[in-house]
């Protein structure tokens, strides 16, 4: 083999190694960022569900339940009724209107508002939210205690 051919072969081997290293590094970084993006999508979905739960407590303390429903209905599949299939927390829709449902489930006891069961069955309000193939629920289920002095914390 003449010297020039040997040098070219060596060069191509070196260049292919460098290019492969670059490609591997690029793939690792790209997949890591994609994985982190997926995690964040899921976390934001969880916080969306939690925002729904917080806003219900505030709506009750302000007596503004119509705005609550108007705000959240376009954000996901909202339902209120009987809680079944725990821990999936699936709400089975009742035939009541939302205000009728609240008049049945919200009771005041010693200046504390309680979200109570309907008869012997647990009641619930849920919002099903989904994004990018993931799904979760924001759920308010009886026996939730809503303190009238604070819109944020259960008592």
């Amino acid at each position, binding site marked *: 083999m003449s*010297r*020039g051919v040997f*040098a*070219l072969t060596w*060069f191509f081997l*070196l*260049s292919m190694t*460098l*290019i492969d*290293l*670059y490609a591997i590094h690029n793939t690792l*970084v790209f997949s890591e*960022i994609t994985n*982190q*993006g997926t*995690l*964040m999508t899921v*976390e*934001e979905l969880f*916080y*969306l569900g*939690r*925002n*729904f739960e*917080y*806003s219900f407590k*505030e709506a009750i303390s302000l007596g503004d339940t119509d705005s609550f429903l108007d705000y959240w209905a376009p954000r996901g599949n909202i339902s209120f009724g009987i809680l079944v299939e725990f821990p999936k927390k699936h709400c089975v829709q009742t035939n009541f209107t939302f205000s009728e449902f609240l008049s049945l489930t919200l009771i005041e006891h010693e200046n504390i508002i309680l979200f109570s069961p309907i008869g012997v069955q647990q009641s619930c309000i849920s919002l099903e939210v989904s994004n990018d193939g993931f799904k979760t629920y924001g759920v308010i289920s009886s026996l939730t205690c809503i303190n009238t002095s604070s819109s*944020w914390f259960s008592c």
Partner: protein
Amino acid sequence: MRGFFSIEILLILFLLPFFTYLFESYRLPLVRETEVLTQDAAQLLMNGHSIYDFPTNNLVVWLDDVSTGTCTYQFKYCTQRYFEGGEHTICLAECLH
């Protein structure tokens, strides 16, 4: 041989960007870290803290359209929390300097 040598020199020049890539100290955007800091900041804001309670030397925090300052950053993360009568957008970025 002079022709071969010229071609090799030319090809080596093409390889230079790959060499620099191997030896440069590249700052990766700390995506996950920024996200976790944003979630912590959001929780503090929900508990009644102000955006001005956060350190301003290496962080910028936004609450809706109000920010604690400006700086150069690679990655900004935003999340939403419900407090004080509505959903608020909380964002955070780590400054590069």
